[in-house]
């Protein structure tokens, strides 16, 4: 179990490092603009004009990040609910004799 915990910790650390290292190494010189908007700029630089406007555009950057946060919260909430339910049914389904309790702790 301890080895399993170590692997989990290393995986989490790996993900965090992949995201954090660019921010640290960069030293604040880049703006980390989205690659989507970079592509759009490239299109606009070549004189391409959009022929259709978004039906709804968030009025400010703050509102936009709020809506992105809402999307993440919805997904995270559902994911947490499912994983919680899956985990919650574990001791109920398995008879104690079949397998020793592994998170009995203490």
């Amino acid at each position, binding site marked *: 179990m301890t080895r*399993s915990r170590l*692997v*989990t910790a290393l*995986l*989490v650390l*790996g*993900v965090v490092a*992949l*995201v954090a*290292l*660019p*921010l640290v*190494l*960069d030293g604040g*010189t*880049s*703006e*980390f*603009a*989205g*690659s*989507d*908007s*970079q*592509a*759009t700029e*490239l*299109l606009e630089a*070549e004189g*391409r*004009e*959009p*022929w*259709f*406007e*978004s*039906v*709804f*555009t*968030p009025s400010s950057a703050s509102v*936009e990040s709020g*809506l*992105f*946060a809402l*999307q*993440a919260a*919805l*997904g*995270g909430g*559902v*994911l947490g*609910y*499912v*994983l919680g*339910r*899956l*985990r919650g049914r*574990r001791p109920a389904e398995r008879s104690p004799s*079949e*397998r020793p309790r592994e998170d009995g702790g203490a």
Partner: protein
Amino acid sequence: MHIAEGFLPATQAVGWTLAAAPFVVHGARQVVTEVRERPENTLLLGAAGAFTFVLSAVKLPSFTGSSSHPTGTGAGAVLFRPPVMALLGTIVLLFQALLLAHGGLTTLGANAFAMAVVGPWAGYGAYRLTRRLGGGLLPGVFAAMAVADLATYVTTAGQLALALPDAETGIPGAFVKFLSVFALTQVPLAVGEGLLGVLLFRVLTVNARPELERLGLLAPAPGSTR
């Protein structure tokens, strides 16, 4: 990988929509069948959709000094096969097009084709290949997540190149140009996404073992696994 609203020529916008539509319709049927015939999997189906929802909401910084979204479609493709993700991915894109002005309705077809069709299928292919070569579930999931992510962005670069060939170098030149915007930024993110997928499946193998066995991802193990 979101091509912004209104930037694809009308004919191509229609073309990509027609190309993506059958996959999405077929995916919707698969989701309905899955829920009706195997209601015990509904929970996991929700998890697959939710995973894509979270990951595609988060813009992550990358080593190129720009940022980009993961896609999260590989996990669902491994669990429920790619058609299901065609619907789930498109729902995510529709949400972003309508509420966030990210992507768009005219480019929904092209974006869905990249993220909800090509990505999941490429990821699923990588998963099957890994398993056939003797890799376990987790290496397979890592490959699926990373390849689904990269394939999505390569497809987007191709779509943009078709829409806007370079004046001198034509479509191949434009493809390289857009690849340099997307692909380089995406490589570290694809690795990160692969690690996240492995984390998710480590939780699932402990807590949802019966489901994974029923879905054919894990061989039924007699008694304890460790």
